[in-house]
């Protein structure tokens, strides 16, 4: 319990951290939407402060001023009219005018948020329990969202299982990932740096750990990053590739490598074990077994576990599966 408490306050280095903001309330602004959203938010904020303080001010003034002395005196309120047309029209029309203005401004901003420019860098985002995967135009798949600064980017969003929602506070935008249809959002980043990406729609156990990083590159940096990562993946030893897949493809959320049981069994010491399945049959963990577990997990459900592993059929190349096998072998 105590160790838990201590562990939980230690900051995990892999978690993204919002850069300090220059705005009192809003997080750092790093897209072209921020000026509109923050401006309107600030306007609403000050309008609310003025409105609330006026109501509270009048109310407390009345409470103090017209406080009854005691019950015994049986005082009653003054015989003033309980109706005043001029006053009532005023306090209906003024809020109405404000509402119309706010609505129109919010509408304009929303149309802008929802209408992606035709010429944009297109990146596919896939939500799955509990991981975001971003597929770049050249086919590279990554768990981080890398984009160039000052360029329009359109993200086409999909989900493979339940609802998720791609939320990037620094860009002031979010959009649900809905299984069975495409949704999209777009933005134009204005600052380079690293920003957190959240899942904002509840999706089960590790919803709150479905956090990714958005990296905005300086001009030229995006292409350089892409070249570098592609080259690195090509030349990576299988074990490292396997570890990368483990981190990137969501295996990590369900399988530990230290012996602890998460949603699925740990991979530590898995190689060579004899496995018993829910239907009573059994098999030894070898290359074929692992390959089959990845492509068709329902065919061999390990005893004592729920059949909750999604299939990765078609999502992992042979090279990547070989990497995973080597990685599992290495976990003695």
């Amino acid at each position: 319990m105590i160790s838990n408490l201590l562990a939980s306050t230690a900051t995990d280095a892999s978690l993204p951290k919002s850069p300090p903001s220059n705005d009192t309330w809003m997080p750092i602004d790093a897209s072209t939407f921020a000026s509109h959203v923050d401006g309107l938010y600030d306007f609403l904020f000050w309008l609310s402060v003025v409105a609330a303080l006026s109501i509270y001010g009048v109310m407390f003034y009345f409470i103090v001023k017209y406080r009854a002395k005691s019950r015994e005196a049986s005082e009653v309120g003054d015989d003033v009219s309980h109706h005043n047309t001029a006053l009532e029209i005023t306090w209906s029309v003024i809020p109405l005018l404000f509402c119309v203005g706010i609505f129109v401004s919010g509408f304009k901003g929303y149309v802008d948020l929802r209408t992606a420019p035709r010429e944009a860098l297109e990146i596919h985002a896939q939500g799955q329990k509990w991981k975001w995967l971003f597929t770049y135009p050249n086919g590279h798949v990554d768990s981080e969202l890398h984009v160039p600064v000052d360029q329009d980017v359109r993200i086409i969003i999909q989900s493979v299982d339940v609802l998720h929602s791609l939320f990037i506070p620094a860009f002031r935008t979010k959009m649900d990932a809905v299984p069975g249809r495409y949704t999209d959002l777009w933005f134009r980043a204005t600052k380079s740096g690293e920003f957190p990406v959240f899942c904002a729609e509840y999706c089960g156990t590790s919803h709150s750990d479905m956090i990714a990083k958005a990296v905005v590159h300086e001009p030229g940096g995006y292409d350089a990053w892409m070249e570098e990562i592609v080259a690195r993946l090509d030349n990576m030893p299988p074990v490292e590739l396997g570890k990368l897949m483990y981190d990137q493809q969501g295996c990590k959320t369900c399988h530990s490598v230290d012996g602890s049981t998460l949603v699925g069994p740990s991979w530590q010491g898995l190689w060579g074990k004899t496995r018993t399945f829910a239907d009573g049959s059994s098999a030894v963990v070898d290359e074929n077994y692992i390959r089959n577990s990845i492509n068709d997990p329902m065919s061999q459900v390990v005893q004592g576990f729920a059949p909750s592993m999604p299939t990765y059929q078609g999502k992992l190349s042979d090279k990547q599966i070989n990497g995973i096998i080597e990685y599992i072998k290495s976990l003695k």
Partner: protein
Amino acid sequence: MSSTATISPSDLGVIPSKAEENYLKHDKGILSWIFTLDHKRIGLMYLVSVLASFALGGFFALAIRAELFFPGPTLITHDQYNQAMTLHGAVMVFLVIIPGIPAALGNIILPLQLGAKDVAFPRLNLMSYHLWVLGALFFIASLVISAADTGWTFYVPYSTTTPTAVIPAAFGAFILGFSSIFTGLNFITTVHKLRPPGMTWFRLPLFVWALYSTAVIQVLATPVIGITLLMLIVERIVGLGIFDPALGGDPVLFQHFFWFYSHPAVYIMIVPAFGVVSEIIAVFSRKEIFGYKFIALSSVAIALLGFLVWGHHMFTSGQSVLAGTIFSAITFLIAIPTAIKIFNWVSTMYRGRIHLDTPMLYAIAFLWVFTIGGLTGIFLSTMSVDVHLHDTYFVVAHFHYVMMGGAITSFMGGLHYWWPKFIGRMYNEKLARIGAILVFIGLNVTFFPQFLLGTRGMPRRYYNYLPEFQELHQLSTIGAFTLGIGFVLTAIYLIQSVRKGPKAAANPWGGTTLEWQCESPPPYYNFHDTPEVNRGPYDGYQHLKFDKEIQGYVPAE
């Protein structure tokens, strides 16, 4: 409104009963409660059940807040957190707030305010309560089997695929829907048919107007959630394919169905609160309510407009821009009558003679928190700003300011206002004021920091969070425990008052609505002779005089 000149003080006195026993003592034995047809006993059973559910929902809330004191796992696991979050929401919405004011307070007070002997259909009323108990048992079944972890919104496809006991929870909500519909039908008929001679529509107390508007929404909207939950259950069992994209269904359709009920349900929860606050502010300001007709009719208008805004929960769901725009515009329209109500209540205090007893403290607390709840609603109906704030703690804070701050504060006000009528005894006023202040402080300390969390991008329904959010979460947790202490204190003095409280007068606050012309606690048949009404509901404070002897008001002969 009706001129006060025609009122004679004796019109405001207690209507004598035939010396029969009061309703609490009229029959004895547990069966005389479980199968009673008396609206007061049914109301009291509802009250006890709702308060017990409130304690359960509150327990889950504290578990959630305690876990969030530190980021990362501390007290409970991911899954337990998700279950606590789901049950907190489901219990508070379906078992506490929806039945809280109408079925518990309203059941007792509505017939009394109408000078009636009971509601129109006493048997149906009993059945509503029995269904409520059955629905609650299903919730508990889900809790015991493997508590649902879908969130109270039951969004598909999560709810159709999670291994937890979703079906008992959804079926429980389905049954509770019937309970709610029956209460609604009963109240509508009661208001139409059982008004006493002379009580025209514009002589109805505002609490009656509020219950009436609420009942209309209950009857019209609740069947939709019933069908939706049934479809969800069928989908889960046989894979029907209405919502499941793998079978050609559409998960967003579920959201449309769900909010088609659940937005109006917001008004099922808050409109009765408007009614309670209207009563309290008039009586404790000793002055007729400002803008009676507006308050009465705007409740109806809000109730009807409330059917046309459900899509404002879905600005980021992929719904079309045009649909979003229409929903946003209508949402702004509703904001205006709501704002005007606040102006009316404050104006009622102008040149009144204000007494700050516990019910009034809660009414003032209501005005405070509801103003914040309403204003932050404007942020969320503004589409571009909502895209950032949607599904963050800003929304959590907003609806807690409205539901907890609005509905529960007003429920507490009503509970303290009518408690002497229900039980026939007074509670300890000093402790009650301390309780009200603790609740008020706790509420603001819990939920205000959540606006900042949400603005900074903290998503809702998070078990874990980035360290940068920690301080605001800790503040919020401290507030939640303050609230907890406030409610425990309230429970203590209320329970104590049942046995030890001093006897309450028939009219301790000087109200002019009919329930105060009935003994405290009311006799079994409420009014031996049906009263005749020749005045508005808030006419005649000047004809009442405080009698120190009985600690209550009597006609000033």
